[in-house]
């Protein structure tokens, strides 16, 4: 018996493998079908109005701050948690930015780090509650949503704070002028690269690299995919959990000034219900709320689907009520189209 050393069965037949690789590449392409569909509808119905640099920049720009939130939320979702507080964190960060600008005349490059620290601080609390006190992240971040919104409203006295601050000469102060770059609609940076869009893309690229190329990224997937295995492999599950919530908060803080600049003011209600958009982008992009599954590329596509869908419906002057209906339907269609194994319901008990 010990003499027979022929490998029992080749675990991989080359032909089969090639087939599989093709399939999985197709699967990846499939993720974009929903987006392509929406682009196609946009082009078919509104040709050049839709497929126009300004229109696309505007559409993505309006969603950029939510898109940035979605990246942070994706991190949290990957570990199997959820972050409902990002909308509130964006709100308090945008308020912080507007106040720093109006009360203390800080420069934008000072404001952004401060806002990120503010967001990261509350994010850290989320992580600590989840990891140390082991509160379900849904409850922890829902509580944080409430607490931070209360603080936001309290510091602002429920009044919105404008960012277009005029100096004694009636013109915008240099700080306010510079701050506008962060997001005033239509503003250009590097000739037609609009800061919010740029920031969103950069955030996506950075976090894509972090997730795919670094140890931290592997650990994030491991914590969400199998926390026990992660722990037994020496992954510091607590630290990773705290880190993703902190990063999510930090990104919300980063998105705050963008939101404030976009509206030229920080509203005490700013960011309300953004968390739903952010989570939706991640989940439409294929992230699983069970954890361990999802990519930044997917979230990016999910965000584009949401914002371009809005744009296409708006350009076609669909009534607001029907927009709600059609939007829901198309999201379902887009998600279904992304699934390669669509019509094989429940074939074979999956082993996971």
């Amino acid at each position: 018996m010990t003499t027979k050393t022929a490998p029992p069965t080749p675990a991989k037949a080359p032909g089969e493998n090639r087939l599989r690789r093709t399939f999985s590449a197709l699967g990846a392409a499939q993720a974009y079908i929903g987006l392509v569909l929406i682009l196609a509808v946009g082009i078919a119905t509104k040709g050049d109005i839709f497929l126009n640099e300004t229109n696309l920049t505007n559409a993505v720009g309006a969603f950029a701050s939510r898109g940035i939130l979605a990246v942070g939320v994706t991190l949290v979702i990957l570990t199997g948690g959820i972050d409902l507080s990002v909308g509130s964190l964006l709100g308090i960060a945008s308020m912080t930015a507007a106040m720093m600008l109006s009360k203390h005349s800080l420069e934008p490059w000072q404001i952004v780090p401060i806002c990120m620290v503010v967001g990261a601080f509350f994010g850290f609390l989320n992580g600590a509650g989840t990891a140390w006190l082991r509160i379900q992240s849904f409850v922890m971040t829902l509580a944080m949503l409430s607490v931070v919104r209360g603080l936001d409203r309290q510091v602002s006295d429920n009044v919105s704070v404008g960012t277009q601050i005029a100096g004694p000469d009636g013109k915008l102060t240099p700080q306010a002028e510079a701050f506008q770059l962060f997001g005033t609609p239509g503003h250009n940076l590097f000739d037609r690269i609009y800061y919010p869009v740029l920031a969103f893309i950069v955030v996506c690229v950075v976090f894509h690299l972090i997730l795919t190329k670094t140890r931290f990224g592997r650990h994030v997937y491991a914590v969400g995919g199998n926390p026990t295995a992660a722990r037994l492999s020496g992954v510091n599950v607590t630290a990773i959990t705290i880190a993703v919530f902190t990063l999510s908060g930090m990104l919300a803080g980063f998105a705050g000034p963008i939101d404030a600049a976009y509206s030229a003011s920080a509203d005490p209600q700013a960011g309300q219900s953004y968390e739903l958009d952010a989570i939706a982008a991640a989940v439409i992009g294929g992230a699983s709320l069970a954890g361990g599954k999802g990519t930044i590329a997917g979230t990016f596509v999910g965000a584009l689907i949401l914002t371009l869908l809005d744009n296409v419906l708006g350009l076609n002057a669909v009534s607001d009520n029907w927009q709600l209906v059609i939007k829901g339907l198309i999201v379902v269609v887009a998600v279904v189209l992304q699934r390669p194994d669509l019509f094989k319901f429940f074939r074979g008990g999956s082993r996971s």
Partner: protein
Amino acid sequence: MTVLTMRAIGKSFPGVRALDGVSLTVAEGEVVALLGENGAGKSTLMNILAGVFKDYEGEIEIGGRVAHIHSPKDARRHGIAMIHQELNLVPELSIADNIFLGRERAILDRKAMEARTAELLRGLGLDLSPRRLIKQCKIAERQLIEVAKALSQNVRVLVMDEPTSALADAEVQRLYAVIRDLTGRGVAVIYISHRLEELEEIADRVVVLRDGTYVGERSEVDRDELIQMMVGRPLGEMFPRADGGGSGVELLKVEGLSVPGEPGSGRTPLREVSLSVRAGEIVGVAGLMGAGRSELLEAIFGVHRPAAGSMSLGGRPYRPRSPKGAIRRGVALVAEDRKAQSLVLGNTIAFNASLPSLGRLLRLGTVDAKREQAAVERQVNELRVKAPGTRFTVGNLSGGNQQKVVLAKWLLTSPSLILMDEPTRGIDVGAKAEIHALMSSLAAGGKGVLVASSELPELLAMCDRILVLCEGRITAEFSRGEHPTQEAILEAAMARQKVTTL
């Protein structure tokens, strides 16, 4: 030279004293086997060594110095690696990612990781791409990947908690070669297994635990004596099946059954499988890893949609569209992977055991808790499940006891045909004998038993007939009267069709 000393180790869980004053020493290059009944505390002892538990009583010394091990990281720092009883891999990550999990460089060096992974896999006879996702790997492959993961570290002490429970002989032999290579280099190995013949082959010393206490140790393996030590009483014949059975009417007939594989899932396709099981007969299914044994049992149980072929049960056509339909016809499946396929780990023993048979425990449309309790308790006691009560959480049971709960669950449905996929995986010798007795008595009671097992001696001793699968095809059939040898079965199991290899 002694590398590891564990002194007076104790550990309690709420309501359970799992370990009490156990000591263990291991020398360089030595293979020490841990033996004991299910729930004796073997895994707990080793988990303490691997840093799974934060607190415990007693002291650990490594290389002559006291080691404080309270986390997996501590354990790794002291050169301890462990292959856990339950597979611990991240399904969505690749093989390479899993092997290096927790030890990556801050910026991944994919190339180096994949090269090293490929090397490790080759050493274990696995020809898999390092980029393959774990969820696409078969159970046996996963177990070998766990081995590779442990080997990838620079270890002084390697703990293997039932590393072979999902492996067939060929892979087991390869594992032995690896272990011998390691011990040759001075690594100490602690090996847990319920397969006594393995201990004979690989262990230098056997340490026996019972009910969380140290019973004794032997350097010479004498099966009867070891059994006596671990069970606390002598055990009769290992495989009690007498000749007979197989004279009943045909119970299950499968003709030309084909099931397509699924791209990416690592499932073996079945090709035109025909077989029959008569009432009172025990039929074995042998084959190498990935031969399609589990697939076959699952197909009969209605898990997969066959592309072609027909089945009949008790003379009537049998076309289960789901496990529910199969269960209704009196078929039961003890699935291969208890954790993933059989148990709701977070729930109680009673909940799990009664799940498929709730239909007969109803009174006025509600579950009759008293009858449920009584039925489950009877079955669980019969199988000697070691647990404080039927309301105990299944996830906190020892591996073998979990397996017993799975058996209890299916016996409660009083099936007429029971399909068993590796039914004695992780089961101690005493309980194994009981399960064998149980199979015999089921057969004697006119039931049909179809059992897939990687342990050929078990099949040879228990079965009236043995079918051999290879790549989803039946390549041979032996009846008890032919007195088949292991070699003959293995040869059939490797009778690959040349055409399919490319």
